[in-house]
């Protein structure tokens, strides 16, 4: 009955959390590996507990394993303790289900969710016993592909990945796999296969494109070097979310992960158009799932996992048209004696949401969260965050009346056009919320209010109106943070500070071109891995990498681009047009707000996908 394991007992017992490496979760899928036409290693390049909490990975795992000819297995980054042992003993990186080496697979696919995981991608390739540069890999090595939000600007990873799929995996992967099966039967070379991929929409094969640069460092030309390479790569999406496959028996880890809960995806996309938000643009248009399907899924998922929590996810859950019906159903079905908690992140705080939270949270009230992003109304208009001071103060006031005493607020420092007045407004907003609390009659003020202000640093992203905008230099970020720290009245307000070094690196990679690949490589060679973990992050690895490659990070961060410049990701077509994004940038500079898609279509370009919110009257 004992499962085949790659690691021996003494190794497993000498590392932290051995259960990360066993592949023995509830609902794990086991297939006869000898009978599989395609073996797919799906990698989330971070530690197990993070990767296992990511719903996108669960969706792809389920989706790929629905195919009888395919066996999709998971790969995560081994934690540093195990990595040291693997390197010392020369053990290969393996996939969890079969425990077979990654090198034996047909595909190694990365899901790329954040820039600070890039060195882990290189490390994964290396631990698997493969060359990190595509050009150096062998014919028998797996084909390496990548998808996910970061790959909408694929260029920083272009030298390491054989092909990218731009858009949602469910849309593109079946075509790729069919093609691969035919190709495998004909025993072609890896190159033959990559050439065949050029005919498929949404696929980008970097080696079939050349980039040249001007003396000033800007891109001179980005040109296909193969007759079949498309000049523009069109994002592929699933238009019918209601009928899209969704895992009904998701994996349940035997150890605690970041989120141990059932996840319901309400819709994809976002109709709000916040100008800093990449997800809000690249996932357009909004595509909702039918409420009845969600009800059915909730029931099945609780039944098949035994979880005690259901979480509704999407970019802005309050915008879901069936929210009231769904939450009422979930409270009736699972509340009270069934002991299932409902968690509702990304809800706007208003009377309706407070009512729901009152019902689900009962006596135990956790905090209320607002994400105004900017302190002043002027700046909120610049970023098109449709949340007014009145909304916040009323929401907080109602929450206080309802018995909540903890309020969290999220902001960004360094947004375009920001001045120190805007930063002062953050402190003032915190103070105004405190005062809102003291407006309550004395009898009901049982505890001191707790206001938590958190700021992150603004990183301009590709495919947003701010893709042309300068990012603040490191020193400015820290100066702004210090300024705010001094302004905050510490009596009832807590302010969380950070270091801006990783934001600066994110800024370089997010708008990086192909040359940034060398920096990532050099940083990894210097020992950078798990950069998203403060305990591992060493800026010196990166600083040295910039010096050695002669690449100036400031060229990518603080520089303002002009409209004529060829941006590294211009060849990707996400639906939303460059003209629309530029128009939005101009409106931002004029402080003009742009309506939600539900209140009026601005013809952003996403209508071309032929469905979703763009066609709702």
């Amino acid at each position, binding site marked *: *009955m*004992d*499962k085949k394991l790659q690691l021996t007992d*003494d190794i497993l017992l000498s590392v932290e959390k*051995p259960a990360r490496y*066993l592949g023995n979760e509830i609902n794990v899928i086991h297939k006869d590996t000898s009978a599989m036409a395609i073996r797919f290693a799906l990698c989330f390049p971070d530690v197990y507990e993070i990767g296992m909490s990511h719903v996108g990975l669960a969706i792809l795992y389920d989706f790929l394993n629905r195919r009888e000819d395919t066996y999709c297995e998971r790969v995560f980054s081994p934690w540093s303790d195990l990595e040291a042992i693997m390197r010392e003993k020369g053990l290969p990186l393996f996939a969890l289900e079969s425990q077979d080496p990654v090198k034996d697979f047909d595909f190694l696919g990365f899901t790329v969710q954040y820039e600070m995981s890039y060195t882990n991608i290189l490390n994964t390739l290396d631990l698997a016993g493969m060359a990190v540069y595509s050009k150096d890999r062998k014919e028998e090595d797996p084909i390496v592909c990548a998808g996910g939000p970061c790959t909408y600007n694929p260029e920083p990873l272009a030298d390491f990945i054989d092909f990218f799929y731009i858009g949602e995996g469910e849309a593109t992967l079946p075509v790729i796999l069919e093609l691969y099966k035919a190709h495998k039967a004909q025993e072609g070379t890896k190159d033959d296969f990559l050439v065949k991929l050029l005919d498929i929409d949404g696929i980008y094969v970097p080696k079939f494109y050349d980039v040249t640069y001007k003396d000033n460092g800007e891109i001179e030309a980005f040109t296909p070097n193969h007759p079949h390479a498309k000049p523009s790569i069109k994002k592929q999406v699933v238009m019918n979310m209601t009928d899209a496959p969704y895992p009904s028996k998701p994996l349940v880890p035997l150890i605690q992960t970041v989120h141990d809960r059932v996840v319901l995806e309400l819709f994809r996309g976002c109709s709000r158009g916040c100008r800093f938000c990449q997800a809000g643009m690249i996932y357009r248009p909004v595509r909702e799932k039918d409420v009845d399907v969600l009800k059915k899924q909730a029931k099945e998922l609780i039944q098949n*996992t*035994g979880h005690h929590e259901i979480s509704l996810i999407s970019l802005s859950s309050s915008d879901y048209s069936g929210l009231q019906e769904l939450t009422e159903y979930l409270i009736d079905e699972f509340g009270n004696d069934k*002991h299932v908690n409902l968690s509702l992140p990304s809800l706007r705080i208003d009377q309706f949401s407070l009512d729901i939270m009152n019902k689900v949270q009962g006596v*135990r009230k956790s905090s209320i969260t607002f994400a105004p992003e900017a302190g002043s109304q002027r700046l909120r208009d610049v970023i098109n965050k449709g949340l007014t001071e009145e909304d916040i103060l009323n929401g907080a006031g109602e929450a206080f009346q309802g018995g909540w005493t903890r309020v969290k607020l999220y902001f960004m420092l360094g947004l375009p056009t920001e001045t120190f007045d805007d930063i002062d407004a953050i402190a003032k907003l915190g103070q105004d919320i405190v005062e809102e609390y003291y407006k309550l009659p004395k009898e009901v003020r049982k505890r001191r209010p707790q206001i938590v202000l958190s700021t992150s640093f603004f990183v301009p992203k590709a495919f947003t109106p701010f893709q042309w905008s300068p990012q603040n230099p490191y020193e400015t970020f820290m100066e702004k943070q210090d300024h705010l720290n001094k302004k905050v009245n510490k009596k009832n307000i807590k302010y969380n500070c950070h270091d801006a070094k990783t934001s600066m690196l994110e800024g370089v990679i997010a708008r990086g071109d192909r040359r940034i690949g060398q920096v990532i490589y050099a940083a990894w060679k210097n020992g950078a891995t798990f950069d998203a973990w403060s305990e591992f992050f060493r800026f010196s690895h990166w600083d040295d990498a910039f010096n050695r490659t002669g690449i100036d990070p400031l060229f990518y961060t603080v520089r303002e681009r002009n409209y004529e410049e060829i941006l590294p990701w211009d060849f990707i077509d996400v639906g939303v047009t460059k003209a629309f994004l530029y128009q939005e940038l101009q409106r931002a500079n004029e402080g003009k707000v742009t309506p939600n898609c539900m209140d009026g279509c601005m013809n952003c370009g996403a209508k071309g996908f032929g469905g979703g919110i763009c066609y709702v009257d």
Partner: protein
Amino acid sequence: MLIRIKFAKKGTMKFIGHLDLIRNFQRVFKKSGFPIAYSEGFNPHQIMSIGAPLSVGVTSDGEYMDVKTTENIDCLTYCDILNRHTPTGLVIISMTELPDKAKSAMALIDAAKYKVTLKHTVITEKMINKLMTMEEIMIHKKNKKNVMREINIKPGIFHMALPEPHTLILLLATGSHMNIKPEVVLQSLCEVNDIPYDKYDYTVHREEIYYKNDQGFMPLNHV
């Protein structure tokens, strides 16, 4: 209704620590529709308690957990139902109804029986005798305040036998009064006999947990 569940933790389940084991049981109860009772209050949780947590790396055929249900159930039927929902390696062996005022498993435990299987180290009867005829077996152990203390584990070793050349059977004090782990005994055995101790050279399996009454050591499900 109070129920004592006896279960085994085998195979890869040995890598799952105590808190995660509890979480897994919580999900098994939920999935299977087991009518487990929840506590009252702000943060209701299932009423269950596991006696004598097992160390990571150790397998067992004799683990116990007490639970409370909201209704009377047929133990045999639920034994099957629960087993359909447990992760591989976690097996419910039996379920026994407890009298209303039964002491909890946790409070009851006096001893546990372990089977230690050695790969290379050779143990002989003579070595065992050498250890067991000593008046005191002193070891260094950290107490709860993290201060090193010397304690005599001799009174906690109830029985030691060598049925086969590579198999050591140990009956050791377990629970709140005295808690002796098999690796400590093995370490002392090696030390006294001047042979090297290798913590990766053996596996430990817990066979049973006991309480003591006039008749001697009784398995916990003997009520």
